[in-house]
């Protein structure tokens, strides 16, 4: 598939935004159980959710660049019963709304305790945050399923696709939260940094698993099934167009084999080992700069990862365009 930069930015930006919100809310939940110190609602939760919201809005903006007719985008919420893309179109604004409401509840201080659960006071922001958490995960599932549900794009049609989206989003979000906590000089740096390392390591396992799976993949469609002629040797002589067509532009990444392999190693290095080293160094010194660098390096790596995710998918229609 041709990697579209609009979709690459959409998925990486909202992934980091969702991950950052989940990190912030995790701190609130832990604080409610006295496992972590309580944080300042305005300086930490409200400001942090603003950063998450900016990432989500930027992702939404990038998604508009993907559309041929962006002015009609409002129509795309219609077919949520059948289309994962439509479900994402609903989940993304819902998630943004919930994150904004959660931040606003903290910022305005309008956060009454609604009821008691044993000795735990459940306040308004706690409930909004729980809803936003559910929506964040729903959004991850929708984003992943957009790709995983197309069964003949066999590189994508695996549960690993959804798992990878969740773990990459979580890793980059918790890493950004660690940098944010270090900037604010809070005691949460170790907590976030630790989880960022754990999620990066888990993502390494699942992404490697999908790379191994795809390397061993046997495509179901062949030249023989594509044109229905049972002969071992079929060679294309004409594609039905003198120069390119939509089919030759949309479904081929167009990069040289060298660039293709290079991008794969770029993402394997930039997403996993380099940020891990930077986080470890950053946690030892509590340095904001190192942690921010770790996030930015990993984000760059995720852009390469998403490029490779698209480029690796081999669409069966390419069988009809053998000489591209």
């Amino acid at each position, binding site marked *: 598939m041709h990697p579209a930069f609009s979709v690459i930015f959409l998925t990486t930006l909202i992934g980091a935004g969702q991950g950052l919100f989940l990190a912030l809310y995790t701190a609130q939940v832990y604080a409610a159980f006295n496992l972590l110190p309580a944080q300042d609602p305005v300086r930490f939760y409200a400001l942090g959710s603003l950063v998450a919201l900016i990432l989500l809005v930027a992702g939404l903006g990038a998604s508009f660049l993907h559309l041929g007719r962006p002015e009609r985008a409002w129509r795309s919420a219609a077919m949520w019963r059948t289309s994962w893309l439509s479900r994402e179109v609903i989940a993304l604004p819902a998630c943004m709304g919930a994150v904004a409401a959660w931040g606003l509840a903290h910022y305005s201080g309008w956060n009454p305790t609604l009821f008691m659960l044993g000795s735990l006071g459940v306040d308004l922001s706690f409930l909004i945050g729980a809803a936003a958490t559910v929506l964040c995960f729903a959004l991850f599932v929708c984003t992943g399923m957009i790709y995983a549900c197309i069964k003949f794009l066999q590189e994508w049609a695996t549960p690993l696709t959804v798992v990878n989206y969740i773990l990459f989003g979580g890793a980059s979000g918790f890493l950004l939260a660690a940098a944010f906590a270090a900037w604010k000089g809070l005691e949460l740096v170790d907590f976030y940094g630790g989880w960022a390392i754990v999620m990066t390591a888990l993502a390494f396992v699942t992404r490697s698993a999908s790379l191994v799976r795809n390397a061993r993949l046997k495509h179901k469609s062949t030249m023989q099934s594509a044109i229905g002629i049972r002969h071992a040797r079929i060679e*294309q*002589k004409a594609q039905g167009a003198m120069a390119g067509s939509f089919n030759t532009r949309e479904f081929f990444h167009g990069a040289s084999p060298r660039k293709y392999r290079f991008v794969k190693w770029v993402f394997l290095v930039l997403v996993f080992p380099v940020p891990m080293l930077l986080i470890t160094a950053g946690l030892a010194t509590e340095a904001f700069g190192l942690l921010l660098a770790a996030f930015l390096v990993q984000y760059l790596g995720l852009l390469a990862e998403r490029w490779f995710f698209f480029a690796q998918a081999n669409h069966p229609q390419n069988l009809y365009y053998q000489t591209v």
Partner: protein
Amino acid sequence: VTQLALVIDLNVCVGCHACVTSCKEWNTSGTAGPMADMNPYGLDPTGTFFNRVQTFEVGQYPNTETVHFPKSCLHCEDPPCVPVCPTGASYKREEDGIVLVDSDKCIGCKYCSWACPYGARELDENQQIMKKCTLCVDRIYDESLPEAERKPACVNACPTNARLFGDVSDPDSEVSLAIRENGGYQLMPEWGTRPANHYLPRRKTRITIHADELVRADNPLKKERELPMPDAGDPTLDETTSW
């Protein structure tokens, strides 16, 4: 239910592209707007087509066959491009099974083209909406046309009659008969899309002639008997016998 479809006979197609040009000619004036023609006289001409003819060489030289392969939307009975559409612009008509795109609802997200294993959908570069074969839906029901012309433009244009059009759900239709009797098949059956369009395979036509068939065994007029032939003036059998 009715399921309109094309049956394309690969045994007969000569790869003349008449279906391609007639399709574009008819549909570029269709209700969905003109079909893009970018850089038509330049180095890299490109544009929107609903139908393309590709050519494959099968076998190893000198034992090769050239197969011309017309390719358009197959109007699947279980079209994977329809449920993925976020706006409902992509739909399959209940009454005749034609898969269409509502050009007023399409947002140009290209997701349906990803979800079509055959690459039958193309994004129009000018209008930025998805386009595809309509089976000439604006033609086949047009009662102002003579009945014989109420067929897709490509079917009318085909000089070798390689394209048949009809209802594949009716077992007695011309297309069902052709599929049944000539080994008609579907493309990429492995994905369960159940394409309505079928292809008829290449067929070998051979006759065996034995030596005795080259000479008339029964030759009452002695027209081909051994030499010497009788003189032209000799009476023939007709003249010497009374039938």
